[in-house]
């Protein structure tokens, strides 16, 4: 999938020609190029669909400055796996624009896909999915993180999300007392 910039020119030209037909080339913030099926990109990402329809796709690599190469690789990987495994009709019917469209449980392959990711990679992927308007990928990644949060204490959450506790000792004691009910087992 990944095409390094330094490869031979002939190969590059061939890749670009291919992209003209049925793929689009995306460029990460750190300059790496990734190819993804045009059909899958348009179907899974509202932002890419808009760019494809509006003709703002660059054959030499569409700049996605907000997305690092690791996250973009995961995005592309997800699009390819998705194209191979789910009939598009199911997805289309679930994305009808009611903003709390019923969430469908992740498929087995989607579960495996997010399970192998590190915390950082997962968080980066949430951001990438949000930026690209990939509703299903956002659903699947957020679902995974929410599962990780179940039954966790505030201390554990701070650790997972790398958050500083900015409460004073007294404030924390006060809010802890007010919310005592929420500290019994889930």
């Amino acid at each position, binding site marked *: 999938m990944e095409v390094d910039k330094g490869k031979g020119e002939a190969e590059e030209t061939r890749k670009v020609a291919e992209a003209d037909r049925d793929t689009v080339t995306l460029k990460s913030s750190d300059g790496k190029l990734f190819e993804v099926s045009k059909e899958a990109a348009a179907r899974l990402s509202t932002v890419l669909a808009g760019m494809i329809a509006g003709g703002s796709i660059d054959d030499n690599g569409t700049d996605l400055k907000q997305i690092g190469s690791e996250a973009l690789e995961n995005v592309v990987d997800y699009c390819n796996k998705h194209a191979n495994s789910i009939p598009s009709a199911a997805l289309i019917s679930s994305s009808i624009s009611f903003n709390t469209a019923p969430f469908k449980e992740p498929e087995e392959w989607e579960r495996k896909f997010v399970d192998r990711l590190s915390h950082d990679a997962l968080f980066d992927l949430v951001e990438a999915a949000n930026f690209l308007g990939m509703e299903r990928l956002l659903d699947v990644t*957020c679902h995974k993180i929410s599962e990780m949060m179940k039954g966790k204490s505030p201390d554990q959450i701070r650790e997972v999300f*790398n*958050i500083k506790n*900015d*409460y004073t000792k007294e404030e924390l004691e006060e809010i802890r007392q007010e919310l005592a*009910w*929420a500290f*019994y087992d*889930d």
Partner: protein
Amino acid sequence: MICLRRASADGIDGEDCPNPKRSTLVVELVASLPDDSIVEILSRVPVRSIHRFKCVSRVWRDLITNPLHRKRLPQTLEGFFYSDVEFHSGCADAPWNYRRHAHRSFISLSGRSTPFVDFSLSFLTSHPWVRNDIKLLDSCNGFLLFANGKVAEAYGTLGYIVCNPATKQWMAVPSSGLSYPASPAGVSLTYLLIDLAMSPHFHLVQIWQNGFWGEIEVRTYSSETGVWCHRSSDRRQWIEQGGWEEWVNGAAMLTSTMGSAIIKGMLRFVIFDMVKSEYQIAAVDREGKTCRNIPLLPAYKHGAGSALLIGQSQGFLHCVREHARREINSPEWAGLSVWVHKDQENNEWELKHKVSFYKLFGKTSCHDGRDYRVLAFHPDHNMLFLVQHLPMKLISYDMDSKKLHAFHTPRSSHGQFTPYVPCFLESPVLANKE
């Protein structure tokens, strides 16, 4: 999602947000996740955990309590709608000529008023088609179900109203076509089923019995189709699922005083099984489908305990039972026990908590209806709500901390207390018209 994110990145309207500068701070502190993604994740976490995570940091607390995010995060019990009927005597010449007046108010659990919800329901009652004496029948996930007028009148032409006081949206529902039970022993109950996380559409389920021995009728309404369906004709089709065979064919009596609960999409309500001579919890879903009954534990299995109320808490079916002391010198323990039904397979009830009447009311001899009444289970806390008759007060009892808290003095102990959990999400279905 994208546009929501932009809204928060641009800075939130100062009027809605208590701390508009906070949103930029979030990006720095929360690893690499922007606040919209955090809210997106939190929207999938149980409400109990969300409240616990307010302790994570000030930033998270502000994120969770920000009015802009209320729409997406699950809410918890705000309080109770209280309704009763009072009679005003007529003029001095004819004091016997009483006028009936429906009273309605809201009792907030925190004691604070919530400025985001129109508890007066003026958005509804100001409409010329809506009657002044609308009667609250049920509440479900932020939505209220009213009879448009007295309950019996809803069976005529006036029908029902479904509304959301947080978004000020409402919609009229025609009557089901059933007539109000003619016999005083008849019972008819109408329930609202809605969960915006699952579907924008709502359903009404009407369970109706004309007298002690009458057949039980079930009718369902869907806002998607806009029509009431007569479910008795499906009886044969669903006989193998349990329910219909067990309770529809005249061997059961509908009860209206022991509460209801929605568990995994099934509406649970109490019937008295004439054949087995015991209370059972029957089930019906929004399409009229049924499943096996859950026996409500015969009293002899648990001392003198008798079931008072069922309800839902933290996703499970709960039941509270009274253990009354029958004789003054009896060594028998007297109080309330709370049971939870977790084991669907084996139909097992698990004892969750016991509390004595002495602890609750300061005396050992108490009777449901005479001295007190259990009103509801908290949907997210291990908590019971009760009304004590003398002196009259509303009490919450926390089963975890074992703390009692008197939080309100009601007008009367005999009114109806309907729990209310707000929902701030606009419904595409409620069209604000009759």
